[in-house]
């Protein structure tokens, strides 16, 4: 039984949880914890420039390592600044432990200086949160927090620690002695239902794997099993934005991303399939389009660890609650033991149909030798970096994000960090910082739009202070491109407030922070400029001036069925019908 102060306990608990890095920003209500951090060397603290960025950096760290990210911020404004990041992590199932300082217990409720009802504010945007009122409960609570953040469907949790609890002495408990309680989500799937799925796979004529972020959440074993299953069955596979990399882009079953800006062949295969095997994806509205017309002829199976994801929007015949790796292991074993059967003849026809759809070449665009097309910029970035095994890509939110998903190929999981569910502009730059902290020698690129990037540009300070060679690849169209695209398709080209009139000189901006800036506007110079960016051992802002009015296709207009896609050629002003206009 070790006695220590609450502040010391926090640091001890983090060490015992194997934490190496904390992203944070100090303030009055966490000073005792910062004092403890100062007096040790095991845990590294990264000082960001805004609490939202601390959370996104922790998300980048978590997604690229599979470990939980840890954030430390002060009470009041520190906590409220963190809310966007916490919500982002909740939507994308990212495990985070957020520690916030709070005013002393005897002042809680008095509108004290820098008091905010942090557990109240973050209740709907955390997986769980705690206000610790007693130092004796502190270590136990922090251990529970790690358990909850990383078990079942991962997500952010928050522990609010009043300042007097940090100063007081209490008894420390170790992780194994902590009450991780009843929270033990089920990981093994129902054998009977898995067998039913295998039976359906044996006879299916037009099967498809539809995979998502849950495969990445489940870990490396899930990825290995998925790859084996896809290749052994010869079924086609598509993935959501969140699942990219779990099956390699160079794999023979790969159809590309599906959904609103997904590939034509992937969406048509989803529409026409007779067996849909959803593995760790959540039938998001970017995927289904108009729900009533979603994949009308298929039997559907859904493997998900969260029972609330199943039958939420799409009814499925074969619900399997469990962890992807556990369920796939059983499914693969059962399928093998029954003789590895698939309907070969029908599959060959199915693939022939898919090849027909591929001939549409849905990602085709009109290139130019005068102006850099954003798609071209990404094709060149891909060509010049795809051999780097240690390449990690982050994105901001907008057209550039969708083009990155379409034009970059991911061979491994945990290499693609993007804000999918919340769609948070300003995510990518701090996320790239978190990734680089976790992988100091890796190539970390943030594909950005200038609008999003400005939302957390203050993090240049962090990148320079810690010598993080993050590459900020900004596709600068001087427009809030995704908004402008919707305005052109939906609001008669009335570009209401979708451009900035006072963008900074990004090269000078880089230099002002002591970093390197590169600008490129001529397609002929692009390769050399990218090479220069890659060769520089330090943070770089790459200002890539691109076509200002390029639209991102293919696109399922909102409110339409998922096989009614707009291709590049169909651009028309009223492409989105009135009924779809209310949808986002």
């Amino acid at each position: 039984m070790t006695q220590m102060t609450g502040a010391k306990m926090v640091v001890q608990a983090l060490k015992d949880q194997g934490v190496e890095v904390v992203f944070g920003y100090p303030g009055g209500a966490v000073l005792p914890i910062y004092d403890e951090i100062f007096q040790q060397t095991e845990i590294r603290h990264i000082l960001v420039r805004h609490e939202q960025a601390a959370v996104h950096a922790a998300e980048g760290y978590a997604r690229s390592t599979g470990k939980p990210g840890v954030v430390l911020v002060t009470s009041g404004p520190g906590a409220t600044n963190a809310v966007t990041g916490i919500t982002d992590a909740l939507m994308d199932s990212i495990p985070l432990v957020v520690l916030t300082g709070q005013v002393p217990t005897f002042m809680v409720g008095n509108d004290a200086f820098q008091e905010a009802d942090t557990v109240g504010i973050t209740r709907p945007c955390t997986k769980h949160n705690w206000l610790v009122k007693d130092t004796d409960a502190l270590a136990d609570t922090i251990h529970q927090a790690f358990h909850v953040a990383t078990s079942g469907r991962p997500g952010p949790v928050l522990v609010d620690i009043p300042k007097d609890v940090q100063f007081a002495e209490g008894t420390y408990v170790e992780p194994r002695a902590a009450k991780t309680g009843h929270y033990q989500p089920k990981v093994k799937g129902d054998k009977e239902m898995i067998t039913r799925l295998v039976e359906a796979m044996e006879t299916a004529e037009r099967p498809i794997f539809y995979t998502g972020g849950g495969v990445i959440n489940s870990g490396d074993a899930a990825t290995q099993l998925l790859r084996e299953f896809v290749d052994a069955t010869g079924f086609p596979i598509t993935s959501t934005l969140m699942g990219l990399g779990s099956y390699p882009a160079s794999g023979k079953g790969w159809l590309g991303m599906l959904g609103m800006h997904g590939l034509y062949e992937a969406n048509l295969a989803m529409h026409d399939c007779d067996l849909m095997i959803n593995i760790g994806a959540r039938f998001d509205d970017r995927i289904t389009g108009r729900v009533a017309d979603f994949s009308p002829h298929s039997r559907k199976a859904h493997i998900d660890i969260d029972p609330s994801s199943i039958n939420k929007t799409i009814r499925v015949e074969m619900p399997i609650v469990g962890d992807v790796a556990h369920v796939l292991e059983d499914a693969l074993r059962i399928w093998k033991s029954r003789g590895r059967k698939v309907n070969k003849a029908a599959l060959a026809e199915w693939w022939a149909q898919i090849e027909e759809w591929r001939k549409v070449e849905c990602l085709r665009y009109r290139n130019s030798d005068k102006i850099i097309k954003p798609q071209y910029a990404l094709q060149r970035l891909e060509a010049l970096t795809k051999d780097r095994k240690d390449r990690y890509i982050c994105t901001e939110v907008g057209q550039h994000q969708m083009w990155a998903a379409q034009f970059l190929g991911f061979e491994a999981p945990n290499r693609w960090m993007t804000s999918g569910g919340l769609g948070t502009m300003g995510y990518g730059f701090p996320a790239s910082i978190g990734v680089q902290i976790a992988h100091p020698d890796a190539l970390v690129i943030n594909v950005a739009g200038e609008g999003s990037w400005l939302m957390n540009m203050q993090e240049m300070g962090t990148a320079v202070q810690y010598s993080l060679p993050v590459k900020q690849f900004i596709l600068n169209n001087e427009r809030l491109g995704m908004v402008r695209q919707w305005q052109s398709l939906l609001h008669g080209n009335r570009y209401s407030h979708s451009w900035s009139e006072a963008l900074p000189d990004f090269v000078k901006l880089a230099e002002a922070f002591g970093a390197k800036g590169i600008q490129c506007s001529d397609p002929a110079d692009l390769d050399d400029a990218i090479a220069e960016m890659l060769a520089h051992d330090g943070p770089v802002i790459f200002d890539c001036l691109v076509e200002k009015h390029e639209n991102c296709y293919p696109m399922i207009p909102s409110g339409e069925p998922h096989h009614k896609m707009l291709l590049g050629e169909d651009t028309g002003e009223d492409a989105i019908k009135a009924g779809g206009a209310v949808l986002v």
Partner: protein
Amino acid sequence: MAAALNIQKGTSKHSAYDLRDPNAEAVERHTLAVIVDNEAGVLARVIGLFSGRGYNIDSLTVAEVDHEGHRSRITIVTTGTPAVIDQIKAQLGRIVPVHEVHDLTVEGPSVERELALFKVVSGGDKRVEALRLADIFRANVVDSTLESFVFEITGTPQKVDAFGELMRPLGLTEMARTGIAALSRGS
């Protein structure tokens, strides 16, 4: 809101995994018993779930039921299509301090009781009639003055409703209801 078609317990043909069109479904009324850790904020989590996701709460009661184990029982009466009811149960199950979610409406026979207090202010015949009806409903008089009674009645929500309707013309001025407590029948 469209008028809700109130289908009572046991009259729905739906089972949990039926394939069905959520738009073509009638609204059902379900009584849920939720066993939770009796810790700060747990009720806020449950209520926040209902308001945040747009679910209905017709009645809600909560009290500690196991002092040593720190457990409380929250009884919620809600309405929704079968798909919505399934979602509500799954969403409740995700809340970390929630231990068990029971749908008493589908888990077999159950008993539901509610306690209510009614203040009736009247004189003459009305006063006599109120007292007579109270006797029929087995309501107790827990306070009386020369002009008023406070009746205490326990029973199913339907019985409490019926008593309230009868008291209205007889001088009902105030009422307080506890909301429903429910348990499954048998062992």
